[in-house]
C-alpha cells in the first residue's frame, strides 16, 4: 500500500495526478492509481473539490458523470483571455434553448427537445454536437431506438460549472408543474391550473 500518509497525502496525490492527466480520469481509474477503494477515492475527490472552492484557489476540480478534471476557476476566466485567446461565437437563442433542454432533461432525444420547444431542432442539435457541448450518450429503448444526448465537459467549461449540480434550478412554476403533472388529471382542479373561468 502506498497509503501511509492519510487523507492529506491522498488529497495531494490526487491533485498532482489530475494536474498531469491529459484527459478526464474516471473515479475507478483514480482509485486504482491511488491504490485505495473507489469510495475512499471519491470522498477524497469531493473533499479536494470543496477545498479548492473554499480557499478561492485559481483552479477547480470539475466532475461530469464519474470523470474528473482540473480546470481554471471561472472567476479568473476573463483575465486569462489575454493569455489564452480562444474566440468563439456566442450561441444563438435557438441553440441556447436546445442546450437548456438537453442540460436539464438529460439524457434526452431530439424528439424531447422538439416537444418542449415546439420547433424542429435537428439543425441546432447538430451545431451543439459540432461544438462538443452535447454528445451522444446512448440510445433509448423505445421503437426506433432514438439517440440520447447529454452535456459534456466542454459544456461545463464554457458555462463555468463545476458539475451539473451547479446548474441553477428551473423556475418555481416548473416545480409546481411537475407536481401537477404527477397528480391524476381531474384531481388537480383546485390547484394552480384553474380551468378557463
Amino acid at each position: 500500500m502506498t497509503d501511509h500518509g492519510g487523507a492529506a497525502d491522498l488529497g495531494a496525490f490526487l491533485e498532482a495526478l489530475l494536474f498531469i492527466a491529459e484527459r478526464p480520469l474516471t473515479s475507478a481509474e483514480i482509485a486504482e492509481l491511488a491504490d485505495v477503494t473507489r469510495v475512499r477515492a471519491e470522498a477524497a475527490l469531493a473533499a479536494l473539490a470543496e477545498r479548492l472552492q473554499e480557499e478561492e484557489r485559481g483552479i477547480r476540480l470539475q466532475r461530469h458523470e464519474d470523470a474528473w478534471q482540473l480546470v481554471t476557476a471561472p472567476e479568473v476566466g476573463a483575465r486569462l483571455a489575454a493569455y489564452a485567446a480562444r474566440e468563439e461565437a456566442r450561441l444563438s437563442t435557438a441553440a441556447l434553448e436546445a442546450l437548456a433542454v438537453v442540460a436539464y432533461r438529460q439524457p434526452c432525444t431530439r424528439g424531447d427537445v422538439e416537444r418542449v420547444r415546439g420547433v424542429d431542432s435537428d439543425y441546432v442539435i447538430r451545431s451543439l454536437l459540432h461544438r462538443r457541448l452535447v454528445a451522444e450518450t446512448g440510445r433509448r429503448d423505445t421503437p426506433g431506438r432514438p439517440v440520447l444526448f447529454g452535456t459534456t465537459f466542454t459544456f461545463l467549461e464554457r458555462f463555468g460549472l463545476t458539475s451539473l449540480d451547479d446548474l441553477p434550478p428551473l423556475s418555481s412554476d416548473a416545480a409546481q408543474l411537475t407536481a401537477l403533472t404527477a397528480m391524476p388529471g381531474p384531481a388537480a382542479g383546485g390547484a394552480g391550473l384553474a380551468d378557463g373561468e
Partner: protein
Amino acid sequence: MTQADRMRPIPIDTDPGVAVPIGDASFTVALPDFEGPLQLLLHLIESRQLDILTVPLAEVADAYVEHLARHPVDAVNLSEFVVIAAQLIFLKSKRILPSEPLPPLPDAAEEVDEGELRRRLIEYRALRDAAVGLGARDGTAPAMRREPRESDLPESPSDPMPAGVLAAALATLAAIPEPVAPPPEIVAREITIGQQIDVLRRALSGGGKVLLQSILARCRTRTEAAVTFLATLELVRRKQVTAEQDEVFGPILVESAESGA
C-alpha cells in the same frame, strides 16, 4: 422583410368580445421573429401581462392568428404553428358557446386539452428562462480552461485528398470480380404437403401407427413442421388415417385407416 417594416407599429385591434387588458391605443410593440408557436404564444401572454397559470388561452387566439397572418413563418415549423392555431380557435369556440355541448369529434381527432397546452407553455417558459440564464454566462471564451488536448482538434482532417487516392480506389473497384451465384445448398427449401404426405405414409408403413410428435421432432424448420401438420390433416380429411389426442397438448397418435378397419 426590411427593418423598417418590423419597426412600424403593429396595432393590436382585438375582437371586442375578447377582453384583453390593453387600453392604450398608442401601445406599440416591435415584434421579434418567432421560431416556434410556443415562443409566440408565450410572448402574446407575457406582453399582455396575463397570468400564465390562469389566463384562458382562448383570449389570445385572435392575436395569435393575426400574427400568423401578418408574419409568414418558416415552412419547416409551419405545421406546428397551425396545430396550435387550431387548438386556440377550438378553445375559443368552446367559450363562445359555453352551454352547447359540442358535437363529438371524429374518432381520429383528439379533444383539445387546455391544461396540456398550458403545461407545455409553462415547461417551455422554464427552459427558455434557463436558456436565458445560460446565455448570460455565455461569453466568447470558455469560463473555465484546461490544458489543450489532442482531442480538441477538429474531428475530420481538413487535408485535401490527393487525386491519386481516387484513381487507386477506382482501380480496386474495377478489380473486384462479379459476385458469384450462391451455392445451391443454401437456396431456400420448398416443402409441399405432397412430400410430407409421403413422409407420413412411409412412417405408417411400419406398424400402421405413429406418434405425430416423433415426426415433427425431426422437422428442421417451423415451416416444415407446419406443412407436416397440414399433411396429417389432409390425410384425415381423405379418411386415409385417423388421429387421436387424449388431452390438449398431449401426444397425437396417427393410425392408418386400413389397419384400424
